[in-house]
């Protein structure tokens, strides 16, 4: 019993100290707004983290938009309400699926890559040798990745939404023969700038903060072995996916809950 409490205590202390280190790392790095020669590091990371995620985002968005339109169409056409397909699809994407699915894909595609890369740098003593040269790896390695993630996630979400709506349009209008005028006008009348577009992008920004934070810290805190890097990469994907889904629930409650 005592031993159990003891183990629990050690675990809790370790957990708190990890959280503390992660938090202090985040603030130190983010406070370092890249400038001068660091700008090209951010651009470089925007390419790695952002541009390279575009393909997977576009493909997923198209099929998700198409599937949602198909489902809405079959249900709504029974009541002759096909014109609502455009609005239903758009709201679903803007408010929920856009930020959430982009977040999940981003965690799997970019988050894992960030963790693996930083973890490998640690394992091969690159971070150590940088420190010995009087260059802080938090500024040189961590900060550009944090900023690139924070900038690219909302942009990827916008791409996801646009492509998703396009996918839905193809299915509902081109394939199932809804009226294009009804599809667009329903959307135009129903979508609000802040309530739907703004809040959705705010969600994606918050997801970006959390995912990049997890990814960077897991890499930086890796046990410096091949096995350690593998475990850390898995943890990044699992942890950020779970956190994104949980956060989305609470954010939806706060943003759209009626109470």
């Amino acid at each position, binding site marked *: 019993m005592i031993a159990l409490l003891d183990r629990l205590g050690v675990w809790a202390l370790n957990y708190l100290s990890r959280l503390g280190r992660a938090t202090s790392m985040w603030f130190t790095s983010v406070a370092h707004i890249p400038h001068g020669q660091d700008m090209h590091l951010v651009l470089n990371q925007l390419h790695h983290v952002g541009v390279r995620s575009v393909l997977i985002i576009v493909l997923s968005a198209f099929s998700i938009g198409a599937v949602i339109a198909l489902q809405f169409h079959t249900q709504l056409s029974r009541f002759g309400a096909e014109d609502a397909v455009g609005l239903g699809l758009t709201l679903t994407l803007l408010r929920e699926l856009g930020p959430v699915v982009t977040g999940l894909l981003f965690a799997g595609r970019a988050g894992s890559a960030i963790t693996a890369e930083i973890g490998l740098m640690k394992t*091969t003593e690159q971070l*150590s040798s940088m420190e010995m040269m*009087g260059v802080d790896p938090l500024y040189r390695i961590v900060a550009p990745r944090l900023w690139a993630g924070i900038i690219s996630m909302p942009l990827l979400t916008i791409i996801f939404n646009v492509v998703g709506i396009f996918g839905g349009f193809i299915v509902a209008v081109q394939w199932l023969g809804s009226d294009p005028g009804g599809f667009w006008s329903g959307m135009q009348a129903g979508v609000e700038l802040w309530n739907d577009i703004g809040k959705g992008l705010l969600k994606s920004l918050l997801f970006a903060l959390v995912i990049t934070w997890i990814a960077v810290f897991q890499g930086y805190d890796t046990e410096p072995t091949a096995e350690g890097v593998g475990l850390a990469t898995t943890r990044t994907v699992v942890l950020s996916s779970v956190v994104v889904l949980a956060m989305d629930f609470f954010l939806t409650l706060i943003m759209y809950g009626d109470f």
Partner: protein
Amino acid sequence: MIEIKGLSFKRDSRFIFQNLEMTVAQGKITAILGPSGSGKTTLLRMIGGQLKPQYGFLKYKGKDIASMSRSELFGFRKNLGMLFQSSALFTDLNVFENVAFPLRRHTNLSRQAIRDLVLMKLNAVGLRGAASLEPSQLSGGMARRVALARAIALDPHLLLYDEPFTGQDPISMGILISLIKSLSGTLNATSLIVSHDVMETLTIADYVYVIFDGSVIGEGTPREILDSSSPKVQQFINGTRNGPVPFHLDAEDLEKQLMVVEKN
């Protein structure tokens, strides 16, 4: 230049150093010889301020390294060139950019000046022709020489070499030895070499420490070390198998351990 007094360092519950005493003289080449696992790399990390000793202190120009503030420490490190045992080249930069890295970070030199300096340093280690290669395209020995070029890019006052001779063929070994010598001569840099390559180390060092089991078991000029009467020191420099320094890490008797496996 560097003064180590009463230094003890523990990892988990095992002492790696106990009451270590050492001085590294300004402008000289000091060498530390010790068997694998004796804590040589650990000691260099303490000098660079990445690890802190539990007892005792390391002083650089009279200043305790462990109690330097973050900015003092980073300032100190700008004057420090360290060759890592694993080379530790940055994998996201090519050879040229690796050597240029400290120059770009710590100086305001023009592009042209940086280019010339980098090519000169690469030339000194015989790898000017490798400037545009990626680290993954280098052999282990080449990577070490690039890492050396990077370590000396800023002409540091203090040079720490962790196993500089491993993986070098006889020709590049000769070049390396004369390079390390001339660096300490022309720059008046203080050098600390950590190694288990006895003969190479003895040819260039001005002063040598032999460490074993957490403390110094012999010190002196290379001549004095070679003539040492201590059986431990003799065993280490001659590489004999049986003697006071065991080849095996402490363990159960081999026969006993094998018997146990058989019985199961």
